[in-house]
């Protein structure tokens, strides 16, 4: 039987960590979406330097461990005169890491919109950017919602790396509680439940959005 007294006695700590996890995830989620969208557009433009940059960005950040990026911003950048708290460093790392995956999802979504849509937009006098914004991206988003939803769920789970750099998130607090109480099993079960409280509504929401968009036109 689970020892609920741990949950009750240390509820404030759990809650603090939970809040930090939510905030870090939310910020990283919004940031990674915007960075990802910009990188995706770079990857498909005909302007070569932008395209190279986009490709390098994706290949680099997708292929190194998240922890390495997090440590870079936590212990690496102070050498360059930039100091971040564990929470900030971790959130930046999460945003950058996730944005590489989101960029790829958006890129394949954009490429799946028929070529004739861009041609119709451009031949009516709209600029490339206008056509992207008003015609291509709104259609791509429909295709891209499920993979992006999965990335967001991964993001929430990945936010647990904050614990490694004193990010005061849920996982970090759990480590503290379990060190204090010598209870391991129960503490991490509760932590798992807290994560589920975030990820289950997220995946339900994505599923709902997917259905609604499918019906929209």
């Amino acid at each position, binding site marked *: 039987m689970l020892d609920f007294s741990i949950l009750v006695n240390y509820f404030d700590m759990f809650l603090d960590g939970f809040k930090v996890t939510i905030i870090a995830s939310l910020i990283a989620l919004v940031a990674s979406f915007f960075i990802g969208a910009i990188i995706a557009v770079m990857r498909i433009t005909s302007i070569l330097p932008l395209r190279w940059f986009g490709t390098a960005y994706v290949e680099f950040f997708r292929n190194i461990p998240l922890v390495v990026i997090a440590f870079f911003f936590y212990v690496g950048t102070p050498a360059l005169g930039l100091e971040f708290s564990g929470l900030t460093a971790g959130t930046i790392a999460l945003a950058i890491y996730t944005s590489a995956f989101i960029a790829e999802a958006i890129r394949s979504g954009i490429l799946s919109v028929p070529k004739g849509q861009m041609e*119709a937009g451009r031949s009516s006098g709209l600029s490339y950017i206008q056509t992207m914004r008003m015609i291509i991206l709104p259609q791509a988003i429909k295709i891209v919602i499920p993979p992006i939803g999965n990335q967001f769920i991964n993001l929430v789970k990945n936010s647990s790396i904050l614990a490694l750099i004193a990010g005061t998130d849920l996982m970090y607090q759990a480590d503290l509680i379990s060190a204090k109480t010598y209870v391991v099993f129960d503490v991490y079960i509760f932590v798992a439940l807290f994560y589920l409280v975030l990820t289950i509504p997220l995946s339900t929401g994505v599923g709902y959005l997917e259905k609604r968009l499918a019906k929209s036109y």
Partner: protein
Amino acid sequence: MIAFEQVNKFYGDFHVLKDINLTIQDGEVVVVIGPSGSGKSTLLRCINGLETTSDGVLKVKNIQVNEKKTDINKLRRNIGMVFQHFNLYPHKTVLENITLAPINVLKQSAEEAKKTAMYYLEKVGIPDKASSFPSQLSGGQQQRVAIARGLAMKPEIMLFDEPTSALDPEMVGEVLDVMKALAKEGMTMVVVTHEMGFAKEVGDRIVFMDQGRILEEEMPVEFFENPKEERAKVFLSRILNH
């Protein structure tokens, strides 16, 4: 006025357009015909810069299409284009499809754009479909919306790339009727089509292409009754016999 002077185009090593010389006057209706792969679409798409030319000079209203300093978006306001597969925006209503460019390119107010859109929807015969989505329309209706979308920019030139080829036979007529009306109002039109009836009725000139070259340029009556080129004869007998 559209003027091709010695225009060539390559896709890599492949020579798609060969020594194209063609002048189209304001108000003229030019019908481009020729076998599949002869370069008709490419020719048409060069006019609004959807394809670039490799050499030679192509001018539309005295502006060089491929010049670096040409504002291509501005030039395109004056050139409407209708595609074989309509290319309507599926996520926008019929009305939004038509008003998008007038609002965002010509900076018309939503109200003004809507008024213009309704005028052209009226004209193509489907004002009642304004709030439908493209997926709710028949092919013929979608193509008429696409024409209205082009016209709403008040262009001086309209390009049509096989506008009836993707339609069920019973819907071809309704689209051709709209195009004929447009031709009679004096619109400058370049039309790639296999509809010989249309070509005869409203075409001022037939341009026959084969393997990237313009082989014959002729008044419709002359072309259909008395084709000079052997390949034009073969082509005509093939399409007229089915």
